[in-house]
């Protein structure tokens, strides 16, 4: 059972392949940033990146040229401003062209729910009257068979790999996380393979208020990566590094300063 627990480098090498659809999730909290950097270091290419809120970890992956496509609902540096590498890719195809598939948060959340539920689509109220459906093939009208009412369908998201950060795992690979849990459970269950990076590995998971537990058999690999969410945070272990988010604005604004950052990450 403990074969489930490997190093981050091994996990990324094993699970993430060129051309894969990869979702790194975490709604502000518990973002698997270290796993994103490892994907950059292993120089993956042609990825379809999926994420509700592509924040700076996706700005980095996009700037590093790992992504061919982005499926998302809000691409910004939360509380700071724009994602400059994302904008440069969309507006100027730098360093490579970036195809986009754009949804609302409600749409993305429901796409993950459908994926986790083994359904091909989800039904919601949304998109009606907006210009999104005209630019997104993955939105369709659907009629209620009982009332005749028209609603909106969105197709399931089933990434090849889903990656999240969590507070801890036990030695059997059972994973526990608490605080803002976002779409953590859904992305792990919707993905063909999954990786959870954790702050600590313990003998036994102590029950915690608000905690979600994913049984080890529902997770492909666990890697011990203390601080692996930085500059995002892990409630109970760290605080969100808001200064770092603000500093990213200057680093990412310019291709050269970003290039220096990238050189350092690639080591």
């Amino acid at each position, binding site marked *: 059972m403990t074969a489930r627990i490997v190093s981050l480098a091994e996990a990324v090498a094993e699970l993430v392949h060129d051309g894969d659809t990869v979702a790194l999730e975490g709604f*502000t909290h518990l973002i698997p940033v270290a796993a994103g950097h490892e994907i950059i270091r292993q120089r993956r290419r042609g990825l379809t990146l999926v994420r509700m809120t592509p924040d700076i970890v996706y700005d980095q992956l996009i700037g590093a040229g790992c992504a061919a496509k982005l499926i998302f609902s809000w691409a910004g540096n*939360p*509380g700071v401003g724009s994602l400059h590498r994302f904008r440069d890719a969309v*507006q100027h195809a730098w360093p490579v062209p970036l195809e986009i598939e754009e949804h*609302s*948060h409600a749409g993305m959340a429901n796409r993950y729910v459908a994926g986790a539920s083994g359904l091909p689509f989800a039904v919601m109220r*949304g*998109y009606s009257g907006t210009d999104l459906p005209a630019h997104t093939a993955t939105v369709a009208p659907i009629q209620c068979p009982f009332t005749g009412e028209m609603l909106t369908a969105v197709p399931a998201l089933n990434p090849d790999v889903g990656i999240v950060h969590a507070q801890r795992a036990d030695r059997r690979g059972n994973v526990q996380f608490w605080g803002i*849990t976002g779409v953590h459970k859904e992305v792990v269950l919707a993905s063909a393979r999954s990786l959870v990076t954790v702050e600590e590995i313990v003998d036994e998971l102590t029950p915690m208020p608000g905690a979600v537990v994913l049984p080890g058999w529902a997770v492909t690999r666990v890697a011990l990566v203390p601080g692996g969410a930085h500059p995002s945070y892990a409630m109970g272990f760290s605080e*969100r590094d808001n200064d770092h988010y603000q500093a990213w604005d200057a680093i990412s604004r310019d291709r050269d300063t970003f290039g220096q950052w990238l050189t350092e990450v690639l080591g």
Partner: protein
Amino acid sequence: MSWTADEMMTVAAARALRGDTRCFVGIGLPSTAANLARRTHAPDLVLVYESGTIGAKPDRLPLSIGDGVLAETADAVVSVPEMFNYWLQPGRIGVGFLGAAQLDRYANINTTVIGTDYDDPRVRLPGAGGAPEIAASCGEVIVVVRQSTRTFVDRVDFVTSVGHGKGPGDRERLGLRGRGPVLVITDLGVLEPDPGDCELTLTRLHPGVTAEQAVAATGWPLRIAPGVTTTEPPSDDELTALRSLTGAEEPA
């Protein structure tokens, strides 16, 4: 005490939140205004953030909608799918606060792209986030945005979130169940949709602002309500509470 135009805007937005309303709060100005309301006249205001925190009571302004202080102080923390499906979609949230990069006379909102070619945009903006469904499903919507001809445009380049569509009856036809934008609060004054044809009309000016300034900052021929009033200036209490939240000093 003296105050800035942004402070006036925030105070006006805070005042628009009443009693024990549930308020869906985005980050930035809406969060500041909602927290100010909770500290002043509306202590029972329930703050709901799309990160899943219901009834958050932050003691400092969060930088993001997912800061730890929101989860630590919330009555309940739910998953993001649950937030949108069980709480927002059925209309349980009374007021939604939205910003805008562009806004038209029917309060339709663009936060997606500037430029009319979606595939080759002049400026790529962050996108929709929770806004389309907040605009659709909250009981009513308050838009908070600085007023300028760059923002207040004759026609938005992209409809990210529907206000009043192309006019009366459009929301019903589209199946949108909330009442839509009822107030647009800017640094110059307050606009409200005309009860007849839904066109945004200037109904209030902040102290020291003229109707001409508001017209000049609007990209369509702005209607002025016959009885346009002047906003009550921020009180010392309001300014003190606001600055203790934001950490700002009194402007020089």
